[in-house]
């Protein structure tokens, strides 16, 4: 058991104890008792007709009981505080407040940038109402503009890009009708506040335009979420339609999404009404699947001829699919989830966005790197060095493979990462060195490779891009 699990166990134990022990609510009963005593004496005196004797007797009688009830209340309170204090001790012991790096807050003046990142994140997560509340509350037109810049930038690029390798798709202009029309309109109408002011446009009108555009981004994510919901409920039609309307771009990216979706639809129909819950008619079952194939697979030409043949051959095994060589194609356990994530990835990529929320990745990476930062800070506190004054962290922050997005080359000689100023150079023998390293190795215009007997001239080294 790690130290942390013991810590959590200890904490849980104290918490259980706290929950079992009487809390402040127990004192309420005692107070009730006191009220009762006081009330009964009062009534006694009144009932006796304000008799002096009764009054003095009864009131003297309750003095002690009341005092002792108060003492009991005090004891109760002592018990509560003792239990709570124990919890506090456990917290101090196992979860001591470690000083988070507080000497320098790199994010201090970046409120609007952070706000923008949060707005985008909320939109990605499908939290549309929270997103619009947030955008409104953070309120500066700057945030709206920034969010628009994203939407704007993507639309402008995708509208004007030329695909060298693929023939110009005639259909593409008709596809995404709304999107393209909006692009044109907005490109004409969108002005920076300065320009707007110059032309005398009211701020109100500008705001309406801005909100129109941030709504555009929201609309795009909204569309993505609608389609994802469909996929979740095993309805692939909207996804297939989307893939078709964007087939040009998807093909240019080398994506198989449209085929993946169509194939899954075939498989889904193949399984018949008992599995897919669709009406039992000629559009369903193996016959329905075949019909679907005939109507739709022609689109894929020769690209997937192998896969399509497999799907056709599977018809023969309709009765005992589980023993056919094609059974793996027909297992749909993860197929829908897989196709959903392919779809999300492609959809986001077409918008120029990553499939995974960058904010999420950054914060998760932060949680992994933070302990190392603190360790380093503690170690260097005596020296008083700040870690943010240099361009590079002074300590390593290992991250899991999937969080390493770029290729990294560390020169084995200088142990430095290559940068644009100090790029990796390949020398004729095929080995790679950092440029500065190479220059240090030069004897005149010649150098000897540190790894092999090869020698070379400076001009034979070429810069490579990893």
């Amino acid at each position, binding site marked *: 058991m790690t130290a942390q699990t013991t810590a959590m166990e200890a904490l849980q134990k104290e918490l259980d104890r706290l929950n079992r022990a009487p809390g402040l609510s127990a004192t309420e009963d005692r107070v009730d008792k006191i009220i009762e005593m006081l009330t009964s004496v009062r009534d006694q005196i009144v009932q006796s007709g*304000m008799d002096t004797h009764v009054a003095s007797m009864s009131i*003297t009688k309750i003095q002690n009981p009341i005092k002792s009830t108060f003492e009991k209340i005090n004891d109760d309170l002592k018990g509560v505080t003792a239990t709570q204090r124990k919890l506090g001790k456990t917290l101090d012991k196992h979860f001591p407040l470690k000083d*988070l790096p507080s000497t320098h807050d790199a994010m201090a003046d970046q409120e609007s940038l952070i706000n923008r990142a949060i707005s985008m994140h909320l939109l990605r997560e499908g939290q549309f109402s929270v997103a619009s509340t947030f955008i409104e509350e953070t309120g500066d037109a700057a945030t709206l503009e920034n969010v628009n810049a994203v939407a704007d930038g993507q639309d402008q690029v995708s509208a004007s890009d030329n695909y060298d390798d693929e023939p110009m798709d005639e259909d593409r202009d008709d596809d995404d009708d709304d999107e393209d029309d909006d692009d044109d309109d907005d490109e004409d109408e969108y002005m920076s506040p300065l320009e707007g002011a110059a032309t005398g446009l009211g701020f109100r009108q500008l705001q309406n335009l801005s909100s129109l555009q941030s709504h555009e981004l929201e609309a795009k994510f909204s569309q993505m979420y609608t389609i994802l919901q469909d996929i979740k409920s095993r309805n692939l039609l909207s996804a297939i339609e989307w893939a078709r309307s964007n087939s040009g771009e998807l093909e240019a990216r080398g994506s198989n999404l449209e085929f993946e979706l169509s194939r899954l639809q075939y498989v889904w129909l193949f399984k018949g009404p008992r599995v897919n819950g669709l009406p039992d008619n000629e559009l369903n079952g193996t016959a329905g699947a075949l019909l679907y194939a005939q109507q739709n697979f022609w689109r894929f030409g020769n690209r997937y001829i192998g896969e399509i043949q497999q799907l056709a051959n599977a018809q023969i095994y309709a009765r005992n699919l589980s023993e056919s060589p094609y059974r793996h194609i027909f297992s749909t356990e993860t197929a829908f989830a897989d196709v959903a994530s392919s779809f999300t990835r492609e959809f986001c990529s077409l918008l*120029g966005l990553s499939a995974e929320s960058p904010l999420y990745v950054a914060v998760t990476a932060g949680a992994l790197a933070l302990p190392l930062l603190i360790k380093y800070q503690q170690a260097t506190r005596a020296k008083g060095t700040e870690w943010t004054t240099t361009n590079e*962290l002074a300590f390593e922050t290992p991250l899991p493979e999937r969080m390493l997005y770029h290729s*990294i080359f*560390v020169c084995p000689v200088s142990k430095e990462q290559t940068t644009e100023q100090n790029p990796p150079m390949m020398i004729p023998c095929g080995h*790679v060195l950092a440029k500065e390293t190479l220059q240090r190795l030069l004897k005149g215009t010649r150098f000897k490779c540190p790894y092999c007997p090869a020698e070379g001239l400076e001009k034979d080294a070429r810069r490579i891009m990893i």
Partner: protein
Amino acid sequence: MADHEASKINHDNHLLLDQPLLRLPYELLRKNFRSAHFTVEKESTTLNKLLKETAKGSLDGKTSPEDVVKNLDTMIAKMRGMKRKLSMYANEETRLYKQLDARVAHLRELSDMHSVEDVKYEAWSRKRLDRLLVDYMLRHGYNTSAQALANEREMYDLVDVETFLTMSKIRESLENGSVTEALAWCNDNKKELRKLQSNLEFLLRCQQYIELLRINTPSKSVEAITHAKKYIAPFQEQYPDEVREMAALLAHRPTDKNLPPKYAAWYSPDRWTKLATSFVEAHNKLLGLPTFPLLHTALSSGLSALKTPACHGTQKTTSSSQPGHSQTSMTSTVCPICSIELNDLAKNVPYAHHSKSHLDNDLLLLPNGRVYGQAKLDEYAAKAGLAEGQVKDLVTGEVYSRTALKKVFA
């Protein structure tokens, strides 16, 4: 092997971002208890005294039965009032217990996970992100959004909306030129503030004094002096310089010509903003809250850990955000730092330190100077439907013959 290490969850320090999560309800519990205790002390003392007096008076014959009854009514009323208060404190206590339960449960979930690749960890990490977002929104005063998000995610017990809402109210009142709420807060937390050696109350009293002087009428000046004698003089030992300056302010009014900057600063309206900041600092220190929103801390270290020199470079890479045909399905995992959402934000943080290269296997150099792993080139060539001996650059789309490629040893 290395990756396995990097993916492992180090339980001992994974919860650094979550320290305040447990601390705050605990501190609030203690505060709540103290209030309850104080109430009981006060009321019980008063009641016992009155009871004793009434009993004695009745025995002595000095108090008539009618008066005894009257006193009893008073006592009953007091007790009823005390009960109401205790009920309030008890409810608060229950609420905090519930919060603690929920929070400990949330943190305990982590003990069952051992790797960040665990699908459960992702859900847990997302929850944590939501918590950090709500915390951020509350600290910046985006209260509606914070509540909306907390409701949407049903995580009310994991965040401290009430605490920050109250803090927000007081901060706003200070920004609007009122010390009343802040002084009430100081009063509630006298003991703890003294332990922290906070100068907040002193500064608030000074501000009251300054506002009286600002009016610049003889009657207000007299009021100011009275105020100073009562509330500022006691701090003479603690803050001698400031007390002296306060005294000097009598001779220097805001409307004076050539007001020395030292005194002008005291009269300046941005004193209110400074007071608001001082209040927030004292508040956070009192409750053990970190100075900056936790999101800032997580982002600073996360952005650095992810950042590479290439992220702000001019060169188009396989993981930079460039929509359009240059990006392929295989390279669509956009680096978070290169993403449009974070790129600007990450400009001023240092990049990560690496002591080992991280490159594809079997690197091949294309004639255009770019380098890719063989597997990637093969896969992309197949997807693009190229002829046998050809490859295609994943970023630029240029097509080359395989014979033109050179092996790279890095």
